């Protein structure tokens, strides 16, 4: 689960991580008073959406007067913001964070995530802040500091000091930064984060160290023990079809092609997308109906796929292992009958009782094309989608 920058910064504050003073505005009327409340001669108006690249997309603007702040706000609120992460349609900006402007001396990059090779969280930091960290990692890997975080003890003080020193910080700023790193590690462990990123962390002209931006992702599998995080969820930021699929325990990802896919198992679902591509087609979606492929799930899956207007054919690929193919065929038939199917349906069944399953599909009187194997299914689907 992702949250907004302003929400991440509130969590930062709870863990002793300094952030700029700021006011969240949901309407234009709130922007003027926000300027007055901050009482500075410079502020930053920041669009709050769950996507990176806001600055380049025009979603972060400096204002030197209340009027200017309102102007910027008017250009953003209620309008789509396009960044390299949103797709061409962009995301509607529903909230702004109006923050005090600060005198920045230096920018750093700081992030905490689980390193899959080390099987533990690693805090990484770089003195090359405010840029794409992937680029730094590729071109100057030595410019990135790593400190593995002990899963039971957290980040040790000596590690935090080493990071601060490695970033070239001195005196009180180094002490403040070290405290901040430990706070970030505590936050990460407390809320089962999958990512906690500060980009940039800044050293100010007055010597303070402040999180100028903040991004936190939570591990969905751990949300059951963090009920308090539920209220941070912003459904407006989630893909409607993906969210609906999740409610039915379906795993769904929207893609750009025109062949709808319904598959049991995530690996087989990815492989089905891949084989469509091998045959010259483009998958419309990733959809895993789960190992069981029950009638209820199959029906819901058909509905979700058919809501996509550009779907020209549907490919169902089920490997019936423990769940037998005749039961799966019944599920498919019930699903087809529950929705109005206007595009060709290609079904590839394999596994236990496959002949009975195929027979059921053939005898149904519905125009279902059965395929003998994955290749056959993919080529039929690509042909049908034109």
């Amino acid at each position, binding site marked *: 689960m992702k949250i907004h920058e302003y929400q991440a910064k509130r969590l930062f504050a709870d863990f002793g991580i300094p952030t700029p003073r700021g006011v969240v505005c949901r309407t234009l009327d709130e922007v003027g008073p926000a300027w007055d409340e901050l009482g500075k001669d410079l502020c930053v108006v920041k669009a709050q959406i769950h996507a990176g690249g806001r600055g380049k997309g025009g979603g972060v603007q400096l204002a030197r007067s209340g009027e200017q702040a309102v102007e910027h706000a008017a250009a953003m609120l209620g309008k789509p913001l396009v960044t390299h992460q949103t797709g061409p349609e962009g995301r509607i900006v529903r909230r702004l964070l109006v923050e005090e402007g600060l005198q920045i001396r230096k920018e750093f990059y700081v992030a905490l995530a689980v390193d899959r*090779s080390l099987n*533990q969280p690693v805090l990484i930091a770089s003195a090359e802040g405010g840029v794409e960290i992937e680029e730094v990692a590729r071109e100057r890997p030595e410019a990135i500091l790593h400190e593995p975080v002990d899963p039971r003890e957290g980040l040790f003080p000596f590690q935090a000091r080493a990071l601060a020193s490695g970033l070239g910080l001195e005196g009180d700023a180094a002490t403040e930064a070290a405290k901040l790193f430990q706070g970030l590690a505590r936050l990460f462990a407390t809320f089962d984060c999958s990512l906690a990123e500060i980009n940039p962390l800044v050293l100010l002209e007055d010597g303070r160290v402040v999180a100028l931006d903040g991004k936190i992702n939570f591990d969905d599998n751990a949300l059951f023990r963090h009920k308090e995080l539920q209220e941070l969820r912003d459904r407006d930021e989630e893909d409607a079809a993906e969210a609906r699929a999740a409610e039915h325990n379906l795993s769904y990802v929207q893609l750009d092609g025109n062949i709808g896919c319904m*598959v049991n198992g*995530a*690996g087989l679902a990815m*492989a089905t997308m891949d084989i469509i591509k091998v045959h010259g087609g483009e998958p419309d979606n990733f959809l895993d109906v789960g190992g069981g492929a029950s009638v209820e799930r199959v029906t819901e899956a058909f509905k979700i796929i058919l809501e996509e207007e550009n779907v020209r054919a549907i490919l169902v690929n089920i490997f019936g292992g423990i769940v037998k193919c005749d039961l799966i065929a019944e599920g498919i038939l019930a699903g087809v009958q529950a929705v109005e199917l206007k595009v060709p349906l290609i079904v590839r069944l394999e596994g*236990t009782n496959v002949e009975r399953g195929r027979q059921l599909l053939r005898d149904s009187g519905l125009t279902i094309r059965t395929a003998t*194997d*994955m*290749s056959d299914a993919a080529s039929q689907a690509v042909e049908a989608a034109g």
Partner: protein
Amino acid sequence: MSILVGKHSRVVVQGLGAAGKFHASQCREYGTQIVAATKPGAGGSEWEGIPIFDTVRAARAATGADTSLIFVPAPYAADAIREAADAGIGLAVAITEGIPVLDMVRLKAYLADKSTRLIGPNCPGIMTPGGAKIGIMPGYIHKPGSVGVISRSGTLTYEAVWQLSERDIGQSTCIGIGGDPVQGMNFVDCLELFAADDGTAAVVLIGEIGGSAEEEAAAWIREHMPHKPVVAFIAGATAPPGKRMGHAGAIIAGGSGKAEDKQAALRDAGVTVVDSPAEIGSAMAQELAH
């Protein structure tokens, strides 16, 4: 021959809910020795002739169980694995999907000085055809033979096994290592065992996007296993970056974990990488004909 499990395996089932019961019967029907089950508070009773214990420690003491098959729900699963390790179980197979990543991180630290091997979580389990089925895979699609299978997937593994068996290519042992970002045995751990196993002549490796386990496997194969052919397929070549594809671990993040990088690394190591998942069986048949 085979690795890790066989007719000798004595299995305790942890978590006797509906799924645990169903799959435990299926395993037993296949011929696996299910010698015990654990269910806190139900110790002393039995289920279909299988004695139930409160703890894994008690189950192991009474039955000599050496392998554990875990169906405990996600919030309690890491603790169940810890319990198995503490009881001295040699191999823990965790089927459970949805264990929090940091639970797995803490568990891995706990297991570091234990001798217990962990397979999974979020996996179909492990199977030695004709020997033991310890997991949720359909037993009948397998055939005894000499091809080892290692995979991060469930149904895609069944697909690969099916393609092999259809061509009369049997399997020594099939291991689903699971689709989570932090897991027990990885590709290299399994490859080490297959490389040393006289009964395994070749290996099918099924990877997917996310992480770098396939790259690490490629480096290991190049160094240590030039003598056994490997056929690989990497799922997710068409997956968009930044999107989790069903498995918690199947995500291209920060430019790493791409299928093309994994394919290239494996090809560099001399592995036969197929672009189409329908060609796994035929590619292996060709390798074996050489």
